[in-house]
């Protein structure tokens, strides 16, 4: 640590990405300062709420053992909504709650989880300061050498930008420009409190078991979708939308979300619950294409949401695990490379090794698939239409199945040609 440098590393943002990096650096004996804008870690973010355990396992196996999770996900659900009707597919694997922890996933409440993780980083010697906003980077001759918070300047060998989507640090470093409207969604979420027993009854869960549900067709045709996660004593229910489409449709985010809450297949799940938290946030939506072209600058690394590390496949959303992986990769690069100018390239190499960048590249197809506007209205309508005909027994002579399906296609407003094109695109992109 040089005379001028007060810290080996300053981490901006106490979320999973920053904390993973801080944890490993501090554990290796580095002087680490974590600066968090919220009054406590986890205070500022909005997340659906699932973390894949393998990432924590990679960070430190011991951490996995007492992680502050809510429920282990053993029910993976997809729900398709059209009007008041709905289809729910529930894939249940009870073995996911026992045995090999590294293939499990947990629902988490970030206010709890981030504080737990911050506590772990502090235990190994990282310093955490909350309630402070970092306003700018200190840059000298194209290198980042520290941060500015209010009137205070703090110098560091490395700055880790873990300040989330629309990262101020990345902007100040010139690595990203203002957000493009098509690369971010607007997410709204409520945490609805219910007794554990009620949640277990309504979702058919045994103790500790949890469900994760993606909801399609709940956005009134707007590019987006819903999610529902069961926590120990609450439910996280939310929606993500493309903001410019909402404006075009002349609708209010709040109204669409209210309609989802009142949906006949959703309302019984949250009935008598008490909304204890309502939040809204930007969500990086573009996958690989939403990542900044450069993930580093000399003296600065972008991790987690700041680096656009989110994967949305339509059937699951990943963000927190990728955040932790990037934090690990950043720490490994910093610890493994003494020459500061080589840490950036080393970070990319570590991201390859940890399978992070390959995963991002592979998921790019999903983003293309999810760009098809028909996914958000016509296809849900088609699926529901087929079901409706399949199960309708009214004493009339039943039509043959093929004819019924064709009718449903007609009703959904899709053409066969579009479906062939979309199907081809689907197969190719996945």
């Amino acid at each position, binding site marked *: 640590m040089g005379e001028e440098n007060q810290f080996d590393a300053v981490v901006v943002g106490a979320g999973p990405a920053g904390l993973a990096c801080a944890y490993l650096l501090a554990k290796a004996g580095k002087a680490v300062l974590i600066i968090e804008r919220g009054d406590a870690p986890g205070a500022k973010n909005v997340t659906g709420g699932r973390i894949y355990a393998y990432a924590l396992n990679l960070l430190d196996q011991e951490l996995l053992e007492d992680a502050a999770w809510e429920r282990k996900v053993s029910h993976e659900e997809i729900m398709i909504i059209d009007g008041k009707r709905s289809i729910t597919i529930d894939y249940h694997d009870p073995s996911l709650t026992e045995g090999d922890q590294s293939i499990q996933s947990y629902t988490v409440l970030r206010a709890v989880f981030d504080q737990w993780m911050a506590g772990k980083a502090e235990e190994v010697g990282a310093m955490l*300061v909350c*309630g*402070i906003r970092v306003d700018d980077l200190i840059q000298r001759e194209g290198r980042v050498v520290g941060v500015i*918070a209010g009137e*205070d300047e*703090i110098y560091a060998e490395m700055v880790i930008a873990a300040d989330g989507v629309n990262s101020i640090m990345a902007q100040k470093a010139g690595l990203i420009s203002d957000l493009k409207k098509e690369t971010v969604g607007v997410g709204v979420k409520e945490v609805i409190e219910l007794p554990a027993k009620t949640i277990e009854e309504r979702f058919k869960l045994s103790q500790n078991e949890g469900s994760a549900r993606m909801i399609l067709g709940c956005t009134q045709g707007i590019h987006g979708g819903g999610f529902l996660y069961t926590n120990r004593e609450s439910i996280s229910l939310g929606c993500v939308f493309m903001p410019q489409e909402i404006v075009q449709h002349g609708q209010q985010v709040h109204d669409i979300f209210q309609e989802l809450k009142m949906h006949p297949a959703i309302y019984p799940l949250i009935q008598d619950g008490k909304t204890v938290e309502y939040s809204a946030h930007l969500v990086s939506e573009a996958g690989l294409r939403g990542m900044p072209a450069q993930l580093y600058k000399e003296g600065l690394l972008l991790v987690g949401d700041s680096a656009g590390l989110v994967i949305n496949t339509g059937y699951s959303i990943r963000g927190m695990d990728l955040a932790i992986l990037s934090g690990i990769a950043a720490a490994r690069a910093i610890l493994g490379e003494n020459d500061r100018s080589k840490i950036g390239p080393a970070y990319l190499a570590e991201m390859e090794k940890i399978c992070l960048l390959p995963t991002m590249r592979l998921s790019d197809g999903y983003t293309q698939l999810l760009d098809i506007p028909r996914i958000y209205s016509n296809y849900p309508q088609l699926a529901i239409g087929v079901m409706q005909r399949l199960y309708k027994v009214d004493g009339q002579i039943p039509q043959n199945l093929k004819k019924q399906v064709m009718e449903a296609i007609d009703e959904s407003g899709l053409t066969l040609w579009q479906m062939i094109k979309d199907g081809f695109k689907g197969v190719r992109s996945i």
Partner: protein
Amino acid sequence: MSRIIACYKWVADEADMKINPDMSVDLSKAKGKISDYDRNVIEAAVQMAKISGDLAVTLTFGSPKAKLSLKDALSRGPAEGFWVNSEMAEQADGAASAKVLAAAIDKIGDYKLIICGEGASDTFARQVGPSIAARLGIPCVSSAIKMELSGNEVKVSRKLEDGIEIVAAQLPAVVCILPEINRPPIPGLKAVLDAGKKPTREYKIEELGLLDSDLGARNETIEFKAYVMNRKNIVLDGETAVDKVQALVGSLKKEGII
């Protein structure tokens, strides 16, 4: 250089308070914080010490949970933090708290001025400051909105219901302040980092020559309940803005608010 001692209380954050359907209050998930008014107390001590060249220090009587408060208090500027650590603090009333704080102040020694909040943000019983003064046998001035040290005196502006009273008291003295005395700034990054390096001192009750049995509360909280204030749901009608304002004024007068 003498000490200017800022006394503060570590209270449950009312933002985390939950009201159960039976109107009982659940504080089990509430995080702690320095009583809002006591942030003014610490700021007042820091400001006074800056002018007089004395040493601002903080003092609290709290359960082990109050340990968290030391760094927060010191990030606001004082040079040293004192903490009387006892579970008894959880049930202490004003008399017991004053007994402990007075004994601690005696132990710290070399004090010029003790600053307290007019009341704590949880109970607002307004007893601790005057009781400390009585125990130490020094003057006490309450409801302070301005104070100034000059020579061997502290000159205090007291906010009364219909005026301002200016009084002078011999030092050492206890001054209980109202929040309008200053606006405590939010500590900056360096202040927070420096706070971790400042000295803190922990006292046990026995070290102060007291016994747990001395600290029994003479007031016992029998019940702690929320109350509901129903909205009146009055809609004011009127053709013009003037009509509406007049209706509003009339309504407020009827309620005895203005």
